[in-house]
């Protein structure tokens, strides 16, 4: 039991990753408002970014710019991956919000249950 508690305390980034993932997925499922679902989607994606960035952390290492006589350097690859993934996430959020605006214009409501009723009456 102490093994699990010890590893949980030292690897708290992974605990936060799993917590954020759970919060994001739960918000996506449970929220009635469409904008809240998109917020949940964002939290879910941010948890993945946190995991990748924290996996690239090295204690006592320098940024990945080569100088003469420098110490160990951090692998720049996870950081670049996250940059790209953040841009992808921003584009997805923008598209999702544009779709929400369109749904609001057509139906006048953002509540998921009301939308189901209105659409089944169509």
């Amino acid at each position, binding site marked *: 039991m102490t093994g699990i508690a010890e590893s949980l305390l030292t690897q708290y980034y992974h605990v936060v990753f799993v917590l954020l993932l759970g919060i994001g*997925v739960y918000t*996506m499922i449970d929220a009635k408002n*469409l904008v809240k*679902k*998109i917020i949940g*989607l964002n939290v*879910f*994606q941010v948890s*993945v970014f946190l*995991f*990748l960035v924290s*996996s690239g952390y090295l204690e006592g290492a320098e940024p990945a710019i080569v100088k003469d006589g420098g110490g160990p350097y951090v*692998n720049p*690859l*996870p950081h670049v*991956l996250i940059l*790209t*993934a953040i841009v*992808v996430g921003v*584009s*997805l959020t923008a*598209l*999702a919000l544009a*779709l*929400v605006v*369109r*749904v609001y*214009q*057509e*139906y006048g409501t953002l509540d998921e249950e009301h*939308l189901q009723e209105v*659409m089944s009456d*169509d």
Partner: protein
Amino acid sequence: MTDALLGVVIAVPVLASVVPLIASFWRDKIGWYVALIALSVNAFIVASIVRGFLNEGRLSHEVGGVSVPYGIELALDGLSVPILVLVALVSLGTLVYTRNAGPRSNSFYSGYLLLTAGLIGVTVTGDVFNLYVFIEITGLTAYALIASGDDGRSAYAALKYLIAGTVGASLYLIGIAYAFVATGTLNMADLSARLAEVGHSDTLVLTSFAFVVAGLGVKVALFPLHTWQPDAYSSAPYGVAAYVSALVSTVSAYALGRLVLTVYTPEFLVSNPVVSSALVYFGALSIVAGSVLAVLQTDVRRLLAYSSVSQFGLVVVAFGIANPTSVFGGVVTLFGHAVVKGSLFFAAGIFAYRLGVTRLDEYEGLARKMPYTGAAFAVLALTLVGVPPAVGFVGKWYVALGAVRAGETSVAVVIFASTLLTLMYVARLVDRMYYGAAGTGTSETAVADGGTGGVCVTYGMVALVVLAAIAVVVLGPVASAVQETLALGEVLGT
């Protein structure tokens, strides 16, 4: 020099997609011509790439001159060549169809070209993170194109597809993040070697495989991750529904096959028999559930969507068995399903535009009113069932043969049962078209000049569907002839 073409074939549609947006300040309907020129150029480039593949075998290109484990690699081998040819052909065919049918705004064609670029990017990339980026590009443009319908339902269906698709892609990202943490590399060929070193039964490797399969399974729309698909296909305009159903899930299934077979090689499946059985049973469940749900549908587009679930279940079974025969069967099924499903949506669009029929009970006696389209529709639907000598039969035959050779005869029984289940809903459809009482079931919308939306059905659209029906019959024997050139044994490493 041919390998640099692998990058050019992605760059051409991306550069061409900006032109309609900028030109929309001067001219309004220029998008179709720009797309036609760009995709024709692309078709020529794809032809020379295929010629290069036939001469040299596996093509590989390092972007930026950065050597392979550190840089991004674009690669083409026997598994990707059919998919690349498929994307080039179907993109041109859908362009012909949307000339009259689809929305012709400039922004639609910009999105169309970007979607094509994303699809080609997924096919030719050799790096797992690059695959994630291209899958997201494909997804984003697909969501935007599906939302381009006229009413609010397409926006809502696109939003549902967006949320489901993003969850899937993020699960895939978690999977490759675990694989990256385990090995330190992102290149597919290098990753397969390093994963073998880490050990195929390691917990981290197993977890990454599970996340990758779950994430790509959402994109492929396997049961029970398919729920976004019927709404998305039935709310989109017909040309868009045909393009998305033909290519987006197909390319995602190719990505799944590429990862399962090339990165986690068949040795992974051998050393974890539970995983291999789970993959095969997952696919078999999709086959059965998709067909059963399709029988229950009354709207034709939803029926076609559930039928896709069933066909992709067959493809996942083929990749799960992982010997060269079944993988060849899976590739043939992918190719054939794409052509068949796209053309079925084209034909359903023709029926809807001309006669206003969208529901199954309105299809009574349709074949008498529109004989050529009705005949083509019937041929395509029977190809789905697996009637020889069409391509559906060839695909199922090779998958079943591979299953028997691998000793999984229960899978061959499921494939046979799937033929019967598919026949259940196809037979209802064809029977109604040919033997229903004509004229009693048509809908109330005005039929005088073009049914829904005032789209006038041209001879080109009907000719496209008839051509597709002939093609799938011819493709069956052609596919068997192509088996040697694909050299799938090398791809699998056996």
